[in-house]
């Protein structure tokens, strides 16, 4: 699943560590989401949506990533 997390994070001038702390996850989780290697749970996706005041579909796109089997 593609996402715009890196762009939103940059717009809000958060580092990966700062965003991870705000969302209650590890920095590695943020990194994996930004690199399209991990799709967040629904609850984490909603937290991201609320934090950036954007609807889910503005942040996440369910178009599959080429080369990923899931």
């Amino acid at each position, binding site marked *: 699943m593609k996402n715009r997390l890196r762009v939103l994070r940059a717009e809000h001038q958060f580092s990966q560590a700062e965003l991870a702390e705000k969302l*209650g996850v590890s920095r590695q*989780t943020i*990194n*994996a989401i*930004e690199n399209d290697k*991990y799709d967040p749970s629904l609850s984490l996706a909603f937290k991201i949506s609320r934090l950036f005041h954007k609807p889910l579909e503005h942040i996440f796109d369910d178009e599959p990533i080429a080369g990923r089997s899931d």
Partner: protein
Amino acid sequence: MNSLNQYKMDMDNQMNSSKSPGSNWPYTSLLLFGYFGKNSPGAKKLAIRNTIGLLLTICGIIFSGVVGQTVYALPVLTLAPLGIVIIMWAYKEYLSGLDELSRMIQYEAFAFSYGAAIAIGISIYATGLYVGWAIPAIWILLAEGLRGIALVYIAGKYA
């Protein structure tokens, strides 16, 4: 102001690059100890609780051969299972304190090491029976080693 501009430039560079910087998973800690960073509060608690559980188990095994059928037999025989229960509880508490990706990596590593260790362990045991060697059932110890390797491999997929 300069630092803000520098920050924006860094962010632009990150956005323009195809990938973010690497994840820096604590591979050594995962391989040797089986958890994410030995200095995190959760890992420290896990290490202490595991040590207590392991000591109880070892004491239970050692003393069970000594006490015989005395009045101390029952308390001593409960030590080893109690130690194992403490280790299981410690892992449960540790996993519930992890974030979702770390927990998923731990679950995947448990699933892999459980199946692989039983398959390899039974193969070794069956070979021992065939050639007449008394090879002990080692797959429990094998599972821990395999879990460390699995943790490193699976964490690497999300780096």
